[in-house]
């Protein structure tokens, strides 16, 4: 140690403000000063090696998640301005191989009670079990692993990133609504791909689709951007997709290794959906409905790039704390933690309806976008998929099937 980088992100360049914020930080994360109170929210991320861009238009992003949290702070702080509430972000980025316990300790020392945990599943579980974390709420803004909502659920963890089950259910509803019930499932070699494929299989069973072909992708990862790269792909993809008839090719390729090569190259002329093509996602740059234009514009102005699903999930986390503080007129961490989990909590997340946390596993219920490469295609739940509580609970693991014990 300490390889961690700690920064205080402030919404203005003023040195006086910086000094003031620092004095306030020394005294803990919630302070009263001339009617002003400050809430410091933690951000715990990991240094990640971005995957090589598959196409020339792909942006290489190294700060996804963090930028969403920063925008959330800016939004909370603008609202807080009228209520005497200030919001700040304290960020720690873990180096490769570094465990999160020390960062959690630092947050605890600083009196931080809410942390955007932009971590993979194993790190998230370690962070949630670290000393000091028992008094915090960690927001999982990164990992879609269903086991984190099932047997791996934790009392001090809420999830703002949709689970794989939610994504698969959302896509399945759309495909079934379209009448594309026969699927060719093509699955990549990585554990995430396998987990996503399992979610697609579960969704097919739930919503009455049939997986007529279920195949692994066995070709080596290629570099389609080499000169004449398309020639190789033009031979390989038809061979790999030479199967019996189906309505839609559902691809599970979370790392974006081959899925994008499929569209326009399959043996049969069929739509590609799943992790590429027609994608189910918590957020997409193509969305401008339900007021999303404003969020997209604010984000682009701040970050200089499109808002990604992990940015949106981090934004949701920070905005949830702000919304609770606004409604309660208070920065009391215990009251906010309780309110977040209550029936009354409802967050406006630019998806056309209020978002809330499921009491049985801490997952934020939310509409899932069905996005094409350039335009929004749809949003699930689809009309006609009914539920006794809310149609949003047709997506993901429902109360009755939950194995989470909080």
């Amino acid at each position, binding site marked *: 140690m300490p390889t961690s980088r700690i920064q205080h992100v402030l919404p203005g360049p003023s040195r006086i403000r910086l000094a003031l914020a620092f004095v306030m930080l020394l005294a803990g994360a919630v302070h009263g000063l001339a009617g002003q109170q400050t809430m410091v929210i933690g951000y715990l991320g990991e240094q990640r090696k971005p995957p090589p861009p598959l196409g020339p238009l792909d942006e290489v992003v190294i700060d996804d998640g963090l930028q969403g949290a920063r925008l959330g702070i800016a*939004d909370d702080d*603008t*609202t807080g301005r*009228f*209520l005497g509430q200030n919001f700040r972000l304290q960020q720690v980025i873990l180096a490769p191989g570094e465990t999160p316990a020390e960062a959690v300790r630092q947050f605890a020392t600083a009196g931080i009670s809410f942390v955007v945990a932009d971590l993979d599943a194993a790190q998230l579980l370690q962070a949630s079990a670290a000393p000091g974390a028992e008094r915090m709420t960690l927001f999982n803004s990164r990992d879609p692993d269903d086991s984190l909502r099932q047997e791996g659920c934790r009392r001090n963890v809420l999830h703002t990133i949709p689970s794989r089950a939610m994504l698969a259910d959302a896509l399945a509803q759309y495909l079934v609504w379209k009448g594309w019930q026969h699927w060719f499932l093509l699955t990549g070699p990585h554990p995430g791909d396998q987990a996503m494929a399992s979610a697609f299989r579960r969704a097919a069973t739930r919503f009455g689709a049939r997986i007529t072909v279920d195949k692994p992708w066995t070709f080596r990862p290629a570099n389609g951007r080499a000169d004449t790269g398309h020639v190789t792909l033009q031979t390989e993809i038809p061979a790999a997709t030479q199967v019996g008839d189906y309505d839609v090719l559902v691809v599970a390729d979370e790392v974006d290794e081959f899925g994008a090569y499929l569209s326009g190259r399959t043996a049969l002329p069929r739509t590609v959906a799943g992790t590429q093509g027609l994608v189910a996602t918590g957020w997409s740059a193509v969305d401008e409905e339900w*007021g999303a*234009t*404003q969020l997209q*514009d*604010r984000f682009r102005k701040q970050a200089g790039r499109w808002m990604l699903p992990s940015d949106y999930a981090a934004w949701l986390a920070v905005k949830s704390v702000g*919304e609770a503080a*606004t409604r309660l*007129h208070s920065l009391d961490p215990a009251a906010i933690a309780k309110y977040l989990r209550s029936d009354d909590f*409802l*967050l*406006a997340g630019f998806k*056309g*309806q*209020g978002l809330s946390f499921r009491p049985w596993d801490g997952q934020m219920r939310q509409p899932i976008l069905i996005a094409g490469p350039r335009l929004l295609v749809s949003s699930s739940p689809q009309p006609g998929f009914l539920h006794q509580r*809310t*149609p*949003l609970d047709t997506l993901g693991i429902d109360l009755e099937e939950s194995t989470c014990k909080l």
Partner: protein
Amino acid sequence: MQTLIALVLVLILVPPAVAETIYVSNEQDNTVAVVDRATMTLQSAIEVGRRPRGMALSVDKKTLFVAEGDDNRIDVVDLAKRQVVGQLPSGADPEFFVVHPDGKLIFVANENDNLVSVVDIAGAKIIGTVDVGVEPEGMAVSADGRTVACTSETTSMVHLIDAGTLELIDNLLVDTRPRAAAFSVDGKQLWVSSEIRGTVTVFDTATRAQTGKIDFEVPGIRREGVQAVGIEMSRDGATAYVALGPANRIAEIDTKTFTVRRLYLVGQRPWHVALSDDQKQLISANGNSGDISFIDLENQEVVKSLPVGRGPWGVVIGP
């Protein structure tokens, strides 16, 4: 022949004094639909800028102002010519605005910049701005012209602005994602609708205390499907009408008791509503079904829906 008889009947039955025209902004068509109220027919569509939403008449009712969200301007429509004859600056991304009772100024919400801009109509320039919360949207002005109200969607507040000094008087917390604001006819109350929470909050304008909260129960529709959007007040002050968005209903509210008298089933996703001059008819602009609904308030029934274009949003009734 039948048409001719109908036409003659219409001419006899409808005196020219009540001839009214309904203007509907179609946000996905970039047009303003022109509808004759008496015959309930679509007359024409005025080509305007991109993504027209908020609209308002000039004080002399000869001009219609239309906010063009994607063109960052307000189009000036000459109602006699039925065409755009000029433009006003609006600041970025105008959605909703109000014309000040003095007829000289427009107060416009700049959704992307967290600002309210004040536009001098004659000089066609912005003469002031006011910092408000995130994503300002709904705008209202009191009848005496002293106070302008602006809602901010992501901050969940209504901001009260002194129209003279352009200072913020107060910032009142309301339910999540407020959309429209409206002063009561006597100016003693301010009503604010909340889209996500599906409520209307009522404030006393003198004390600025919350004096009422209206919830909407729509049979067969869940909480998240009931979203309060546009508000229209009757001239006698006794009734308010609130569009309930995805619940496809317009609520009629008793302003004394804050109780919902009845719900009118209209087209899909009504955004805004407007009352005819004689107060006998209410028109709703229905965003998802691409039509407007005519509600006969005397007989309490929806009498017609008329396709007007794609994405009807704002509705204004003029001469």
